[in-house]
């Protein structure tokens, strides 16, 4: 590249236990540019930047900052060198206030004690810089929704006046609106001469932002190129190392059977109001709209996790009242929920892949509470093959798999139950292009096999590509129903921002 790099990595290698996360990795970034890092799940992107920011130590290789060789023993050291990172796993303290979090490491002091007033001011400035003035600096992070926290995370990094700013899938939890604001901020920072490193699985984001790109595969650096010099397909093929086409499987015409899942006047607290729709077998029904408009609550309500839900839910015409996941499993038609956060809700990370896979289906695999080892083993093998889960051995902890494979395990463990109604809560967050493709095709297969799928995604392309119908939600209500070729990015966005009054409310 024309620009002489401010930061360089050469021959970086890192392995965890047996797993090689990185070998011979290199990277060079320059001021005033946004450098995108692409790669499948487990390609080593996070590891690379964890090394840059002192979270983990490389086994081999050199790093140069302004030409000088550097080594960061701790994140603190990296910070002092002006390198700041916004992590894929958030680094906020839930029990502290937003202001406390923003200057956690070195707050303004008077007489050695924290100066609350100044801290408050700095926090407000930082939030403003990140375009999140709506967040109260005294609010506890614990009480903020995920997307707000992500904004705090960004504000936190900006408050430290970084030279090099790294975003590791910092946008994967953000709403379209927030993403736009963040992009504006990033572009301003670039103009101010920062060096930015940007990791995302969202091609369109990268296309919009990046100046330079580096692609990683299996921990190796495979290519670096100026943005736009390669077609998306080439890129994706670089990433996944194989032919790549037909992202989304074709949508077959809907079978005209009666609805299996009917919801009428469903309400909960002030988060869900008068939700009514019906879903047919073989249908993939999307939930759209801005993040946090009640889509998650709707799924949880159907799964029986919420208390005091009003309205009627019919399955195969029978009204049901589901008191929790356990009841949902044994509903007239078994239900499954692929939860939002796989690390805390989907999996027991330290337990083996096998144990995780059989968790929901244990009752079916056991007699009088005694597990039938043979049937269990068979079921596990079947699922691992079906979803092509890449794990050296089903006995290794699921936490050792990369994001994509973890997500597959979450889905597989429910499929083992043979659910007929499947609720998905943004299942492709942080999943690489290739894995996504597999998941889309799996969903379609399940639908064709007669399952009903309720699919919430923060990602319009997905809704467009996968869903037969999309219910757009706003402020806890369904404000619009889109079917067939009505489902366009434009339609989704416009109705997502529309106010309840205007849009003609659609009832399934």
């Amino acid at each position: 590249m024309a620009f002489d790099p401010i930061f360089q990595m050469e021959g970086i290698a890192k392995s965890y236990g047996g797993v090689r996360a990185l070998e011979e990795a290199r990277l060079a970034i320059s001021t005033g540019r946004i450098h995108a890092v692409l790669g499948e799940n487990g390609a080593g992107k996070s590891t690379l930047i964890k090394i840059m920011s002192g979270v983990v130590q490389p086994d081999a290789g050199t790093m140069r900052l302004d030409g000088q060789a550097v080594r960061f023993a701790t994140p603190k050291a990296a910070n002092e060198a002006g390198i700041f990172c916004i992590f894929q796993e958030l680094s906020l303290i839930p029990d502290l206030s937003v202001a406390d979090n923003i200057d956690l490491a070195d707050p303004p002091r008077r007489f050695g004690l924290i100066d609350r007033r100044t801290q408050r001011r700095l926090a407000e400035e930082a939030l403003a810089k990140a375009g999140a003035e709506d967040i109260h600096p005294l609010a506890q992070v614990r009480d903020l929704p995920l997307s707000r926290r992500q904004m705090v995370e960004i504000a936190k990094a900006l408050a430290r006046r970084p030279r090099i700013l790294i975003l590791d899938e910092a946008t994967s939890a953000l709403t379209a609106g927030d993403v736009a604001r963040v992009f504006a901020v990033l572009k301003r920072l670039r103009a101010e001469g920062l060096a930015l490193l940007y990791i995302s699985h969202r091609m369109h984001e990268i296309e919009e932002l990046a100046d330079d790109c580096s692609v990683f595969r299996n921990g190796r650096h495979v290519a670096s190129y100026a943005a736009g010099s390669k077609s998306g397909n080439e890129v994706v093929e670089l990433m996944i190392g194989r032919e790549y086409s037909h992202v989304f499987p074709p949508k077959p015409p809907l079978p005209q059977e009666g609805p299996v899942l009917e919801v009428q006047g469903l309400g909960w607290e002030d988060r869900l109001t008068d939700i009514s729709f019906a879903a047919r077998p073989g249908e993939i029904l999307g939930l759209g709209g801005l993040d946090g408009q009640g889509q998650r609550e709707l799924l949880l309500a159907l799964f029986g996790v919420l208390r005091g839900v009003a309205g009627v839910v019919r399955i195969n015409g029978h009204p049901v009242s589901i008191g929790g996941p356990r009841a949902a499993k044994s509903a007239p038609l078994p239900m499954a929920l692929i939860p939002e956060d796989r690390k805390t809700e989907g999996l027991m990370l330290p337990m083996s892949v096998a144990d995780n896979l059989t968790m929901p289906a244990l009752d079916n695999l056991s007699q009088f509470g005694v597990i039938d080892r043979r049937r269990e083993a068979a079921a596990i093998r079947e699922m691992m093959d079906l979803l092509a889960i890449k794990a050296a051995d089903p006995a290794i902890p699921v936490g050792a798999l990369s994001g994509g494979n973890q997500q597959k395990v979450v889905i597989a463990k429910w499929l083992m139950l043979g659910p007929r109604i499947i609720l998905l809560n943004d299942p492709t967050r942080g999943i690489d292009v290739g894995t996504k493709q597999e998941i889309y095709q799996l969903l379609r297969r399940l639908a064709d096999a007669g399952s009903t799928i309720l699919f919430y995604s923060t990602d319009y392309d997905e809704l467009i590509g996968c869903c037969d119908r999309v219910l757009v939600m706003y402020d806890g209500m369904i404000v619009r129903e889109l079917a067939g070729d009505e489902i366009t990015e434009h339609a989704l966005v416009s109705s997502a921002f529309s106010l309840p009054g205007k849009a003609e409310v659609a009832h399934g």
Partner: protein
Amino acid sequence: MSAPPTISPGSSPLSRSRFGTLLARIDRPVLAAFGCIILLLLVGSLYSSSFLSPDYLLQQLQVASFLGLIATGMMLVVLLGQIDLSVPWVVTVGGMMSTAAAGWGPLGEALAIPFGITCGAAIGLANGIGVAWLRVPSMIFTLGMNAVAQGLMVLRTGGFAPQDHATSAMHVLATGRHILSIPNALFVWAIVGAITIFLLRRTTFGRAIYAIGNRERAAYLSGLPTRRVIVLAFMASGGLSAFAGVLLAGYSTKAYQAMGDPYLLPAVAAVVLGGTSILGGRGSYLGTIAGVILITLLQSILSVMQMPEAGRQIIYGGVIIAMLLVYGRQKRQV
């Protein structure tokens, strides 16, 4: 194919070691604990060769059985990431209620043991409800239940159960040696232990315990009956503590106030020395067995060596720390 819980891996979410190394690491605490047992006996034998004599060892195993029962219940609870501090007075409840039942004529005589255990399980039930339904941290709720149990015993008996003499059945169970002079108590522990191992490795209940211990939220969303499992675990703990109380009453042919006091901390220590993570979700019963024997031997040898209390306490604490430093350290986060 599917990994038995005993080899479920480290508590750190980020641990990524492979199956082989895994086995090695997980077995280490157990091996180390058994190693320490041998070491302890050798050290003891320097003082007196009779520490290696079979009847001394059987004697220790007999006494260890009481602690063993309590530690079994404690382990189930610890695997859930909880703890049961109500042990001392639940043990006493077991002893006093069983002997009290013995006072109610031949029927009571017959039902003494089950009755004592049931009373313990009842307190365990209360603990379970407090933890699973009211969601009070077990650390504190069981503490309160312990106080309540004490209050009940002091009140119920005013110091003496009207009848606090153990039944012959209890006495035989605790002290008898019918099959090749192996203490019956040891058989009791062996049976309970075998059942526990089976529960933990082969049943949905065991799997659920490890799952909840690792992440209750995910276990709940997977449709596991988390509350029921928690309550059952606490009932088991209560019942087993009470059972130990029953045996202790049989051992000294009577129940008396505060007879459970010497058992709480040793039980926790035994479970942890056995390699069970106090945070829950990881541990094997084999380890607990080792821990129990270790603690019992340590106490006995120090006492027979006529080590003064002060020295005994210091060595006791020192040994626990030393052993855990050898194998009990959890991996650093991130």
